[in-house]
């Protein structure tokens, strides 16, 4: 029997739900299983309702599922909210103080057992123990993970947690669980990684050395990871007074010659848009991470969305070239970040990584180890590269639109830049011919930028019904294709990561023969459908849209696809 089950752990913020999730994911990863976990939480530090949902499988998985086979309820609310998702044979594991449920309830005295183990704080470990026992996991597997997790702390912390885990195991030792499976030793399939960490590693691998930010969910994770991983490495992280300062600091550092980035979400990106335009006209290479959440304004701070697509492509007044990449997976988040830095410097334009709460906060298993590039090309001109450094013009008009980029105070070339429209030498100019020439110069980069863009990835792309998606929805879309094909629906998909400048020709080559196209997006206006039509003339039959702030599940597609069959 193949393994594919979902465990959901729910409770109030502050009950250590995320810790349980991390522990379970680690036990599964170390046992050679495939695993992915989503974090669903409210914008609060204590109380409310949060849950972690872990899908465990013996085959590769890319997306969360709706069914919950085992529900661990640390509070009453979890039972009420999630029991509807439990199929026959599923179990609710809850504290003994809870009473009724519509589904089979197994009560374990999480808190009392935790007190026996040495403290109420270990109630989440008791719960994790019971959960693993029901799944059939050997106790030693859990013990090993606990030892890694708590090994560096005071030994009493580890002892208490091991005791708590044991009590959790014993409490359900006689119980049967329909989907318990064999935990024979399998080779480890990869390491656990979330999107935020992948982007942070990508920045490091791109030789980024400066990040400035203003805290904002769900974008802070990138900076938190960068801060943790650059201890002892020449990398400066500065918490700015606001997002406007953050982007302008990044522009200043990039102007001076250090690869630099900032990370924000939609609201912060709004504040950065004038700076984005400055990077556009002053031709400064910067990288901005926009981890999308539903808006407008404060919207849903801890939820996910894909509502910023047309915004980031068009953000800031007037026109200038920029790159926009929407990674489809954590692996791609790493490599797209490296590409963003590289291409941003190659073309002296800003680059945006468009991710979202789902990709940033969810844990995936990556199969291939990330590899840092052997070297980093900087596309910087020193005096020796310049014909006449004393007459250096930062914005010299060239056929490619890219001018040699010298750095200030690194030679005799004076680097003079302005966010006003300027002459080739960077001085302000209101001359009409110069204005046209400078707009043309900046736009001249676009053709070569497009050539750098990858077209979509296909999966059964010759199918009769083609699902079109972008960014982090890719996993759920691909899995929906598999499920539909199992039901003899001739479905396939095309998924995009490189969004701007839009690689229209490559898209036409791939989509020319497509029969019926349906975009799948986490926004209400079908923004990608609009973009696709604008850029290629291709008219999709319709869209499957979800904008409740929750991630896309394959089931969402299955339920709506009938409208198009």
């Amino acid at each position, binding site marked *: 029997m193949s393994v594919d089950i979902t465990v959901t752990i729910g409770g109030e913020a502050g009950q250590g739900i995320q810790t349980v999730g991390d522990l379970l994911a680690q036990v599964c990863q170390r046992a050679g299983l495939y695993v992915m976990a989503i974090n669903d939480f409210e914008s609060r530090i204590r109380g409310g309702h949060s849950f972690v949902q872990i899908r465990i499988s013996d085959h590769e998985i890319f997306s969360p599922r709706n069914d919950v086979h085992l529900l661990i309820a640390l509070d009453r609310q979890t039972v009420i909210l999630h029991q509807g998702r439990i199929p026959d044979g599923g179990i609710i594991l809850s504290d003994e103080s809870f009473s009724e449920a519509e589904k089979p309830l197994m009560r374990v005295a999480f808190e009392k057992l935790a007190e026996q183990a040495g403290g109420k704080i270990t109630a989440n470990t008791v719960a994790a123990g019971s959960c693993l026992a029901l799944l059939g996991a050997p106790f030693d597997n859990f013990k090993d993970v606990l030892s890694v997790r708590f090994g560096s702390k005071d030994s009493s912390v580890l002892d208490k947690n091991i005791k708590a885990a044991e009590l959790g195991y014993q409490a359900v030792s006689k119980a049967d669980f329909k989907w318990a499976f064999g935990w024979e030793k399998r080779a480890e399939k990869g390491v656990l990684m979330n999107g935020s960490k992948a982007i942070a590693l990508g920045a490091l691998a791109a030789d980024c050395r400066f990040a400035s930010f203003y805290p904002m969910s769900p974008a802070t994770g990138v900076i938190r990871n960068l801060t943790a991983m650059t201890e002892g490495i020449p990398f400066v992280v500065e918490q700015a007074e606001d997002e406007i*300062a953050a982007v302008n600091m990044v522009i*200043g550092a990039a102007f001076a010659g250090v690869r630099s980035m900032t990370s924000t979400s939609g609201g912060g990106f709004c504040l950065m848009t004038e700076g984005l335009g400055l990077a556009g006209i002053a031709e400064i290479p910067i990288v901005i991470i926009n981890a999308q959440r539903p808006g407008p304004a404060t919207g849903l701070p801890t939820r996910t969305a894909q509502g910023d697509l047309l915004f980031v492509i068009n953000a800031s007044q007037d026109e200038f070239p920029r790159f926009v990449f929407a990674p489809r997976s954590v692996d791609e988040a790493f490599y797209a970040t490296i590409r963003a830095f590289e291409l941003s410097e190659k073309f002296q334009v800003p680059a945006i990584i468009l991710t979202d709460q789902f990709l940033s906060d969810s844990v995936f298993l990556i199969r291939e180890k990330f590899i840092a590039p052997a070297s980093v090309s900087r596309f910087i001109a020193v005096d020796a590269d310049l014909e006449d450094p004393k007459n250096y013009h930062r914005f010299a008009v060239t056929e490619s639109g890219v001018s040699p980029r010298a750095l200030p*105070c690194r030679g005799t070339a004076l680097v*003079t830049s302005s966010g006003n429209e300027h002459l080739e030498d960077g001085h302000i100019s209101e001359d009409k011919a110069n204005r046209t020439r400078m707009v043309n110069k900046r736009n001249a980069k676009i053709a070569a930028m497009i050539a750098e863009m990858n077209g979509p990835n296909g999966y059964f792309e010759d199918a009769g019904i083609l699902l079109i998606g972008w960014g982090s929805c890719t996993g759920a879309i691909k899995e929906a294709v598999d499920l539909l094909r199992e039901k003899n629906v001739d479905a396939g998909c095309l998924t995009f990561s490189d969004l701007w400048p839009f690689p229209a020709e490559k898209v036409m080559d791939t989509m020319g023969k497509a029969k019926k196209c349906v975009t799948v997006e986490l926004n209400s206006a079908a923004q990608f459908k609009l973009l696709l039509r604008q850029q290629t003339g291709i008219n999709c039959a319709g869209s499957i849209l979800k904008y409740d702030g929750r991630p896309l599940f394959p089931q969402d597609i299955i339920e709506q696809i009938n409208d198009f069959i």
Partner: protein
Amino acid sequence: MLTKENFFCDFENKWCPGCGNFQILEAMKEAFAEMDLPPEKLLIVSGIGQAGKTPHFLKCNFFHGLHGRALPVATGAKIANHELTVVVSSGDGDCYGEGGNHFISAVRRNIDITLLVHNNKVYGLTKGQASPTSDIGFRTKMQPHGVIANSFNPLAVALAFGAGFVARGFSGKKTHLNQLIRKAIAHKGFSMIDIMQPCVSFNPVNTFAWYNKRAYDLAEEDYDATDLDAAFSLSRKWGDRIPIGILYQKESPSYTDRIAHLNTGPLIDFTYEKDRVQHVIDTQ
């Protein structure tokens, strides 16, 4: 030895004849020359307004960015390469209005840059609206009944947030201003000079004569610039006598001094080391 001619730039000047900016520009060039700071070693960052145009009118590296945002750009540049000499040329609207939050934060960071604020107490480039430093009651076409809000006191604010070099200059006393600029650049840490200047087009109240009658040099009095309480008290003096000179000076480790890696050299000079990065990746 450099002279101010080394900073000559033939780009057409766009200020009004008689503007106080000309004297400030001359004082800057003279100060840089006397410090032996050549154009290629100097980075001037500016925002928007007449003061923001300053770097176009002398020879130097410059970044002329957005309204109010010169300080964050300068901060980023200094973090990237702390061997740069970074001077910010800003105005009262740019620095204290649009960029007020950045002003406070730059002071708090004690980033080692020099801020020169051309303070003419009025918006010039947008034609004569009140600025944050306009006095209560100051009348303009946009404020026909006079300014209602209290005037922003940049020196008191800088002192309150722990600035280590707080000075006031006057465009009409060019030599004095030149000396102040040299001391400000030599100061390790954030330094600021609020420079009183007339606006010949839009400020009929605070004229050259008005300032000239009131400005007096602190150095000519028995004044101790290490006394923070005295500096606070002096920062609030505005009226018949207005002190110019250094109100307060005390060095403390700057932002980049306090980042351990940067003690071995500027961020820009480190090299990419694949093995080090791969090690970080492999140990996640």
